[in-house]
């Protein structure tokens, strides 16, 4: 159970990688998150989070081909692993469960 623990930001990054499908690398993930959540995200945070997720086994990565636009440097593309997909699903399930067990009046509290 402990291993599937996902931080809020980790979850967003993981989701963004999933959303971007084959085009998920540092910059695209950063920009995607900025676009979707309309909050400013540091590239450094995204980068370390990606690495951490990979260490946890939720992502795999491989280097892409050389591109001219970034000084010939290659991109590292990330992909969701099965474990990553499971983790996302777990999180969603837990969340749904919680929402569903919410008493009706709590909905009006805010």
């Amino acid at each position: 159970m402990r291993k599937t623990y996902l931080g809020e930001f980790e979850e967003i990054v993981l989701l963004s990688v999933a959303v971007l499908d084959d085009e998920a690398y540092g910059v695209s993930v950063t920009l995607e998150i900025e676009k979707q959540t309309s909050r400013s995200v540091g590239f450094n945070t995204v980068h370390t989070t990606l690495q951490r997720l990979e260490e946890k086994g939720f992502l795999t990565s491989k280097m892409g081909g050389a591109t001219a636009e970034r000084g010939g440097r290659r991109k590292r593309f990330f992909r969701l692993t099965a474990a990553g997909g499971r983790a996302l699903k777990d999180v969603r399930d837990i969340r749904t469960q919680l929402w569903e067990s919410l008493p009706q009046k709590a909905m009006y509290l805010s």
Partner: protein
Amino acid sequence: MSNKNNHIKPPRLADWLLKKFTPADTLEEVQGDLLELYKHWIETDDLPIARQRYTWTVLRMLRPFAKRKSLESHHDHSLHPTHADMLQNYFKIAWRTLRTQWQYSLINITGLAVGMACCILILLYVRHEQSFDRYHDGAERIYRVVRDEMNNADQLEPYATTPGAMALTMRTDLPELEAATALFQSRPLVMTYGDKQFYEDRLYGADTSLFRVFSFPFVKGSQKDAFITPQSIVITETTALKYFGSDDPIGKPMKAEDADYFVAGVVKDVPANSHFKFDILVPHRLPESRFITTWGPPRYHTYIKLKESVNPINFEAKVKAYAQSKYERRPLDKFHLQPLTDIHLHSKLKGELGSNNDISVIRILITIALFVIFMAGINYINLATARSTKRAKEVGIRKTSGALQRGLIFQFLTESVLIAILAFAFAVVLITLLLHPFNQLAGKQLELFQPELWLVWLSLPGLAVVIGIIAGLYPAVYLSSFNPVRVLKASNTQVAGSASWLRKALVCLQFTISTCLIIGTTVVISQMNYIGNKHPGFDKEHVIVISNAGQLSNRQVMEQSIAQLAGVKKVGASSTSTVGAPNWTGNILTENSQTDRMINLCQVNYDYLDALGIQLLEGRQFSLDFPADTINTIILNEAAVRDFNLTDPIGQQLRWDASSLDTALYTSVVGVVSDFHFASFHEPIKPFAFLIRNNFFVQLDFTSKLFIKTSAGDLVETVRQVEEIWKEFAPQRPFSYTFLDDNFKNLHADEERFKVLFSCLTGLGIFIVCLGMFGLIAFVTEQRTKEIGIRKVLGASISNIVLMLNKDFMKLVAVSLMVASPISIYFMNQWLEDFSYRISLSWWMFALAGIAAAFIVLLTTGYQSIKASLENPVKSLRAE
């Protein structure tokens, strides 16, 4: 558009940092990503903002110590020894071990703490000693010009003093100098302001050039106005407070006995780490400082500051030639440059401005302090490996449950580091307690928590950790290397025996060091006893010395009045301060010789020899009955007679070295006295001559010190009566006196201090060794409980068993005595060589050290071994 942007490079510094600190395996992608983002930012925002964001992102990316963990190990990453959980676990286990085996922990912590406390104190002391005079701006360019007094027989007497004009003329003649100054040690004066009156003995004659060489920051007034008139003086903050309280001292009048001054400047107090310390600086006074502008008598201390590019070695040669050509009065004298920062630890010249320390003493102290901490470290190693029996099972079980050796090493190191840190905390407590006694011992005012020591305090815990790691490394590697199968199957003794050769060797090393220290202490103490008991050749008991009696009118009348007191036997007067170093040397020639002989001189009154009980061997004393007793008559000591090769000294005509005089000046020997120690026992008795202060002959009276020989009776009453007379004749000067035996003792105060420090350190070292041994014998007896039980059943007596348990230690004592003896013979002979009058090493010192070591061992192990031998064998044999 994008083409244009291609040329805009991101900030170079940020780029460089990125390259430097990003792990190689991710560098490429990170660089690429950032470059892409940078372009994106340029398009969306301005260029400067983009640059800012780029730099900011790079800075936040920096993780200099981060390493990407290898992906393969991500399954078992929780077993990695640096993982936080594991670290926490190490500490928990370490803490438990410390608590369950608290006796061992206590021994280790105490030993290490004492060792560390020693080391830190010595470190502070050494730091202080080495910091002398370094606080001046450009201290490394400041030199003192010193002088070897030479004669035509190449005899040499090194002096710290030089002629007054030296600084003055060098300043104008030698372009390499940035500044030069002459300092004059003035005689003590009583200074008065209103109803405040104090006796000031740290008084120097100086001029503004002093502040160009040295950095004494002004609190009030300025360097420019410091000596603007011949009445302007500069005082320190403390002095200002003493006289003027909270009033503004500038412009306030201060009266000396012969002049009126006013305060023109206040400087910060002279730091304790200065080789000369002043309270008041006065302009060069007449008549005492009248030679400041001439190449006259060498009574000044000359300090120079070189320009930055000047090579001191070449310049020294130039100074030598320059000074020799200028100093016509003594053309043979040789001049040298002495780095300012070397004075405190390396200089022992005639006419030093303070008492300097000796670098060899510092070295010895450092060595011993290191020895002490080393022995504490050995204790740790020994106890840890001895304990291995207990830990072997633990290691075996841990290994079978999957622990790696690396993890175990980490765990054991955590233990030793924890012990070291606890010991350090304990050591800090010890130091705060011991600082005051230590200061008294060392004669210092060291403070622990000074702002400039922050670096030391920051680095010390680090040092403690390093000590912990060094001491713990071997036991950690040793313990963690056990083969689980063997240790779990084998009986205790089989495992523990394996490191015993190392333990023996280390214990032997400890014993050797302690034996060396014991021998050293014995030698130092016997030498100091020898010095204390050796008759100096004069009577030092019951002699009151008054040293500020120079240049008083009616002095001789005063002497006579004092001599008439009931408790006073004789009143001697002399030009030398204690019986210590005489204040000048001269050259003398035998009648037909051309070769100078250097001789120490001292002017005395008629009663001096009697007052000090210096024994007359031949001829007569100076006497009023011989009105011709003037500079023409002289009394020599035996050393001088030997040095001059005089067979029948009385009546011999001697010639003063005439290089500074126009006509030859003869003197005849009227008496010979037996050799006496006029200097410390470091120096051999040199040729010495007494001159008489003649009542009729017109010559300067140099006798500024009175030596009042009293009868043994009521000394207090006599002192009181002398004081009354003093007040009558010299009301303007305070009455201050010392005793000759104290003065003589002070000649060897540094050695006395060294002796106590040395003995204390030895004591602490032995204490630490005892601690270790106590732990070891406990272990040995525990190991051999069964054996002891069986032996007792078979009829062994208690003494048999005590002997059996101590036999090994005794062998080690014997071996270490054999190793320690030659080492200590070598080093102690070196120490003794500094003394001209010394004991020689003899066999009893080594025997004593051996017996002492054996005795200490028996004392430490006695309790445990007797306890073990008294135990009921039924108990020890039944327990399984």
